[in-house]
């Protein structure tokens, strides 16, 4: 199978990931619940993973790294912590439902959407500045669009927010592991990311980097302050109730080690070169509209396209029958399709990882040529 759906999850992982998961299942217990060697091993593992994430993402202290089940979980914690009834929240026009749905669940929140065209960060920033002048309580922004790979100018957004004292939440679902993220320098309130995409960990893992303490989404045992009815007021315990996904975190630690060894910039360059190759090949096919920019500063290794006169689900089903895994439709991001003008049709998305090759792109293009004959 050719797997080009890494924006959903990187299915191909470094071998060390599954080994670490297996080792943890066989030899590790719950942390903070006992004094056994198996419990201590798990505690050491979690601390090492927090430390590794803190080093990779410019987090001042390891306790500011909170384990979540995925990016959606982290975004929900962050949104419920920052956004209250009556608030005005500014979001990009490229947000995922993991942002728009939690916002819609809080009554009395005014959500303002920055509808700006693809691959034009200057236009985005200009509109952002204008909107901030109107008064905003919280800003939430995608680092990279999961549909189009559009890299939003989040460092500038973070700086605008910091200058105005506005809390900033970054959704790094598509950027963690390829683009630089530095919590302290960005002065972000929170950064949410999955463990199972660009960090090459298993599904069921995620990280929430905390510039603030935040409000719990789950309540329960933490292995600390047992006689207190309220959740502890310190991190990470405040936001981590219940038993951790120790096996998943063991895999995540190995995934992050792989990213560190390979180098985030190298992985990004590799994915972008495959994206460029695919875009060039797609443009040569009849009726194909490709959403691609030649500028590596504005697009990561994610690419959308559509074929005039053909439903994107039809293209997706054809590719699936020929053992090419891609994703077609709306990608849980209707706002992104509205911003890019593809809300009527959806798109077919290709998303690459460190494990994809040029030969796979060549083969994919050969297979897609057959679509016109089918």
């Amino acid at each position, binding site marked *: 199978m050719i797997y080009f759906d890494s924006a959903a999850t990187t299915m191909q992982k470094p071998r060390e990931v599954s080994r670490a998961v297996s080792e943890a299942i066989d030899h590790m217990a719950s942390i903070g619940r006992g004094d056994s060697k198996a419990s201590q091993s798990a505690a050491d593992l979690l601390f090492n993973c927090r430390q590794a994430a803190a080093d990779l993402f410019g987090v001042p202290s390891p306790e500011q790294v909170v384990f979540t089940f995925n990016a959606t979980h982290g975004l929900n914690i962050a949104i419920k912590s920052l956004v209250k009834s009556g608030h005005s929240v500014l979001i990009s026009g490229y947000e995922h439902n993991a942002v728009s749905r939690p916002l819609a669940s809080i009554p009395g929140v005014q959500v303002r959407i920055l509808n700006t065209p693809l691959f034009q960060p200057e236009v985005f920033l200009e509109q952002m500045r204008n909107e901030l002048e109107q008064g905003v309580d919280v800003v939430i922004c995608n680092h990279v669009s999961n549909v189009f790979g559009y890299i939003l100018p989040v460092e500038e957004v973070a700086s605008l927010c910091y200058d105005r004292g506005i809390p900033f939440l970054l959704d790094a679902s598509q950027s963690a592991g390829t683009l630089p993220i530095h919590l302290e320098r960005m002065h972000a309130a929170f950064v949410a990311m999955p463990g199972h995409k660009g960090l090459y960990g298993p599904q069921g893992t995620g990280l929430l980097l905390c510039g603030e303490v935040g409000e719990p989404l789950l309540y329960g045992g933490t*292995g600390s302050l*047992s006689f207190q009815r309220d959740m*502890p007021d310190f991190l990470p315990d405040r936001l981590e109730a219940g038993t951790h996904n120790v096996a998943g975190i063991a895999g995540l630690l190995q995934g992050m080690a792989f990213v560190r060894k390979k180098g985030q910039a190298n992985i990004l360059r590799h994915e972008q070169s495959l994206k460029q190759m695919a875009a060039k090949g797609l443009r040569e096919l009849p009726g194909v509209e490709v959403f691609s920019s030649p500028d590596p500063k504005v697009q990561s290794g994610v690419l959308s396209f559509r074929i005039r006169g053909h439903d994107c689900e039809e293209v997706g089903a054809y590719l699936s029958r020929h053992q090419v895994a891609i994703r077609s439709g709306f990608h849980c991001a209707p706002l992104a399709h509205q911003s890019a003008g593809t809300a009527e049709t959806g798109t077919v998305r290709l998303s690459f990882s460190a494990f994809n090759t040029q030969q796979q792109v060549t083969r994919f293009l050969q297979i897609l040529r057959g679509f016109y004959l089918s």
Partner: protein
Amino acid sequence: MLHYLIMCRSLTYAQRIVQSLERVGIRAWLIRSPVSVSPSGCSYSVKITQKDLSHALMILNHFQLPYLGIYIGSPEEGYREVDL
């Protein structure tokens, strides 16, 4: 044998303290706090020898590592808080 316990508010803080102390050559052990010194329920402490206390405190202050209190004692004789 008498030793000191640096009582911490969470496992992660205790782990940070152990890491910082071991980096400067101080032997430190992470333990669950004895119930007698932990009235709010479960917590973790870092155990160090008597001779290392002043150096350890210097490190804690230097790196601004928070702790809840310092206790002296042993499992046999019990623990009492040290007024620093």
